[in-house]
């Protein structure tokens, strides 16, 4: 057991958990004030529900011994059975570290369904989704014996498992759920952008644990991953703002926040496999392209309310595919060389396969799950509840006491 490694993974676990409340405020600031508690609750509730599910069954399905051709783990660790001891770091802190990833991944989806998904339907959806989509994909990519892991496609901290997975699920869910009443004709501007910037700061802070913690050791790979994370988030901000300023005439605070997240999403799969100035290129490309990608929803008229597809799905695809160009064994001996570093197209092809299969699997299973929930308990609040807002209709609360309610 290495005490330095253990200490770093303990701290990283806390850092990553803090991202989910950060995400809640990132999203919460962007909705209208009548829906802010509903949005915060989609996210906070994911902590409560997914943590329990992960300990009971999710971890075992993801990281238990492979059962069926690299598709899913066995039930050897159900209920945290046989998670004592460990090599390098205690197994139980690995379980907890991975638990924070399991929590934030479904929480990411909430931005797409803002203002209209029933809380009960959300609870059922993310609970089942965590078991039937998240755990299998985590097994494919990160567990010994998982088919993508064995193919040696690279995903340092969750480009496929977290961002493409959540983004594809978000797309499937909103196709079943439909658009918000009034969208896109009625203005639905953010009610509190300072919340969104505060949330972005928390996300960036926590992302150091997400990416550098994924080294699972306090070593040079972790240090490189942290630097890459820092640079890609920063370059993502610059990339977004440059394109936004040219296209719309202003550099906005929401654009700065969104660009940081786009850059961080794209560097996530790459974090421990690239070095030097690569993260700046990756972050800047993601910032600029994600800004352009979110305009697609107006063209195709799907209501991806807070741009989960435009930022997480597109940013995740950019990061996973671009790693096929920028990966370098100079950064990490355990990685591979991409096209720009003498590795030819082999890695690029593996990255594209991992990306497409994750996208397709998550989309199809999420679509079926959404249809089943819609046909049974219903996915969507009724129109009166939607007009009144989620805060009063779903939670019987109001975020901001008006003057007179002293």
């Amino acid at each position: 057991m290495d005490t330095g490694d253990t200490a770093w993974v303990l701290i990283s676990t806390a850092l990553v958990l803090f991202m989910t409340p950060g995400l809640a405020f990132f999203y919460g600031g962007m909705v209208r004030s009548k829906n802010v508690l509903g949005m915060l609750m989609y996210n906070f509730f994911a902590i409560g529900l997914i943590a329990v599910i992960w300990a009971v069954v999710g971890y075992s399905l993801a990281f238990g011994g492979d059962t069926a051709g690299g598709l899913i783990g066995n039930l050897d660790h159900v209920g945290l059975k046989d998670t004592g001891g460990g090599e390098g770091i205690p197994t139980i802190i690995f379980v907890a570290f991975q638990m924070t990833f399991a929590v934030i991944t479904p929480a990411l989806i909430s931005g797409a369904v803002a203002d209209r998904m029933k809380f009960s339907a959300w609870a059922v959806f993310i609970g089942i989704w965590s078991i039937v989509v998240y755990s299998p994909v985590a097994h494919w990519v990160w567990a010994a014996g998982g088919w993508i892991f064995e193919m040696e496609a690279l995903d340092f901290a969750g480009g496929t498992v977290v961002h493409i997975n959540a983004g594809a699920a978000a797309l499937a869910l909103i196709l079943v759920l439909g658009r918000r009443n009034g969208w896109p004709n009625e203005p639905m501007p953010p009610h509190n952008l300072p919340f969104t910037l505060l949330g972005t700061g928390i996300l960036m802070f926590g992302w150091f644990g997400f990416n550098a913690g994924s080294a699972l050791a306090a070593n040079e790979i972790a240090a490189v991953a942290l630097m890459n994370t820092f640079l890609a988030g920063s370059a993502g901000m610059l990339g977004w703002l440059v394109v936004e300023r040219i296209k719309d005439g202003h550099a906005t605070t929401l654009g700065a926040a969104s660009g940081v997240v786009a850059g961080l999403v794209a560097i996530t799969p790459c974090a421990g496999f690239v070095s030097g100035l690569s993260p700046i290129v990756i972050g800047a490309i993601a910032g600029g392209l994600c800004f352009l990608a979110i305009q697609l929803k107006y063209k195709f008229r799907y209501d991806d309310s807070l741009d989960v597809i435009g930022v997480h799905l597109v940013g995740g695809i950019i990061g996973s595919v671009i790693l096929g160009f920028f990966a370098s064994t100079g950064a990490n001996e355990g990685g591979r060389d991409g096209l720009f570093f003498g590795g030819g197209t082999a890695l690029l092809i593996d990255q594209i396969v991992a990306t497409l299969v994750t996208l397709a699997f998550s989309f199809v299973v999420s679509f079926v799950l959404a249809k089943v929930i819609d046909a049974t308990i219903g996915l969507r609040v009724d129109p009166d509840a939607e007009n009144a807002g989620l805060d009063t209709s779903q939670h019987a609360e109001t975020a901001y006491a008006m003057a007179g309610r002293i």
Partner: protein
Amino acid sequence: MKLITAIVKPFKLDEVKEALKGEGVTGMTVSEVQGFGRQRGHTEVYRGAEYQIDFVPKVRLEIVADDADVARIIDVIVAAAKTDKIGDGKVWVTPVDSIVRIRTGERDGDAV
């Protein structure tokens, strides 16, 4: 007795208040309001989506005054709130039937 209602730009509130105090006005009620007139609203952009925002923030002042003071108070408000740019606001006057000071029970002219 009259009620003077003025809608002014928020950043002009302090100047208007000081000018009124200088003229011996002893009380006023202020609220934050939204609205539009000829100025119309403005546009805001969020992630590339442009929104027309019709209601812009303004401040509403309410002052009750004796008939004899009304013209002077209006002049003071107009002079202090004026920027010569569109959106400076409006002042209007409505008659008041009666006034009671709650603490003392004084009425009408004594309660202004």
